[in-house]
């Protein structure tokens, strides 16, 4: 398997505070990799640093053989990386359709109709609301929209930041079912989550982040059984 993305000893600082400490990880093509960790562990910082927001202070982020750590966000986005970010960040006063079209910026509009149809099959709720302002939708629908928007750019690597955040358990289950479908198409996914149970079940491999450092790594199944992980993230049962 070829490595798609690799973090090499990445440090990130916010002023005097170090948010990431010598983080190294790899994501291979076709894999689902997850990063679990508590609130404030540095998971979102990690994902955003891929887009240079914030810039890393040392180390390298290699994507398809190229160090992208100093590139602009739009350069990164136009080379096959798409993110459904923390807090979803859909465009509130745009319609669902317009939000989806925003996902096509890196590849142009030629596949827009076909891809939008595909998204509506994957997320039937979005089709019902296609002309509705995105801000009027529920949290779960907004999360689906954020994921669908990221998929509209036909990414080589899909980055997901806590798709379960703030959602009812039944919706979380639905979203993870859909992610499983997406993964079965061969999409490479890097998923950052607090919901360790769902994330580790879906993932081929996982990393555990504590205070900006990678503490543990292993296959999804191994980490699920790891006593430390069970204690900290799975409520000890």
């Amino acid at each position, binding site marked *: 398997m070829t490595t798609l993305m690799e973090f090499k000893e990445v440090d990130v600082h916010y002023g005097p505070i170090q948010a990431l400490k010598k983080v190294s990880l790899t994501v291979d093509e076709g894999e689902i990799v997850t990063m679990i960790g508590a609130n404030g562990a540095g998971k979102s910082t990690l994902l955003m640093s891929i*887009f240079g*927001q914030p810039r890393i202070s040392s180390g390298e982020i290699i994507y398809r053989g190229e160090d992208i750590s100093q590139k*602009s*966000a*739009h350069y990164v*986005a*136009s080379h096959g990386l*798409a*993110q459904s*970010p923390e807090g979803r*960040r859909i*465009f*509130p*006063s*745009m319609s669902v359709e*317009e939000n989806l*079209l*925003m*996902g096509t*910026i*890196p590849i142009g*509009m030629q596949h827009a109709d076909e891809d939008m149809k595909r998204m509506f099959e994957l997320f039937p709720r979005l089709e019902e609301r296609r002309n509705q302002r995105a801000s009027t939708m529920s949290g779960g629908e907004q999360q689906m929209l954020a994921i669908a*928007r990221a998929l509209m*750019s036909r990414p080589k690597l899909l980055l997901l930041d806590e798709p379960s955040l703030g959602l009812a358990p039944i919706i979380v289950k639905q979203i993870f079912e859909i992610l499983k479908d997406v993964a079965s198409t061969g999409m490479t996914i890097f998923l950052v989550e607090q919901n360790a149970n769902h994330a580790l079940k879906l993932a081929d491999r996982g990393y555990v982040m504590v205070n900006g450092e990678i503490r543990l790594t292993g296959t999804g199944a191994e980490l699920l059984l790891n006593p430390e992980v069970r204690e900290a993230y799975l409520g000890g049962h």
Partner: protein
Amino acid sequence: MDIVLQQLVNGLTLGSVYGLIAIGYTMVYGIIGMINFAHGDVYMVSAYLTAISIALLTFFGVQSFPFIIFGALVFTIVITGAYGWVIERVAYRPLRNSSRLSVLISAIGMSLILQNYVQLSQGPNQQGVPTLLSGAFRFYVGDGFVQITYMKVMILLIAFTGMAVLTYIIQKTKLGRMCRATQQDRKMASILGIDTDKVISSVFVIGSAMAALAGVLVTLDYGAFDFYIGFIMGIKAFTAAVLGGIGSLPGAMLGGIILGLSESLFAGLVSSDYKDVFSFSLLVLILIIRPSGLLGKPAVEKV
């Protein structure tokens, strides 16, 4: 009665001009959260460019009015748009991550530079263009009449066409979606692959082009201009933008028309000497009673 109708017609034309210029204020505010105080002076530059383009066209023997106005519009809009692009590039982009105050000071500096540069290069005296289109429609109302010059009809037609085209671009095209996305969430826009610096540049170009449209129309109608006209026009258009709700595109157009109408009615019915006082009192009132304007959203501090 005829005075009221006459002032309504005058106010509508004046208001459409305010609206065109207010678009530049509101779009720039929407996308980078600053008041571009050099915008009025961009309008002033476009008045000079109009005169230059008319001189050039007549020099090359173009006589027919439609060709002159078309040529003047294209020439002035393109070059004023370039001014907008350069201004953003040299005065605002280097300060993209600085405090709002620095950008504001830079804007005031830019305004002074433009005024002095035009004063030095074109002379401090009032300049003028000849009347190219004369004549008017007259409607008799009771004892008096209402007169609408052909020029005013043209102003209305071109101004509203300009606004309609712009609304279409913002609502329906990819560039428009990119502008709205950048306005709503600049960071997310960049993550989706939008070059937000380019979008901001294009907003300055669009705003300046709209000011240029106003500049051509007013210059052809009014004839006279000097290097200082940008100040009062800029502040009026800014008032219109605030009245409509700064950041809102339909708000700018609506605010322009309301301001134009009320100012003309005040001038016609109360006192034309105090019409500027009236306009600015209106600005003060809005800021006190409804700071978010007619169509604006209540201000939420961007994080």
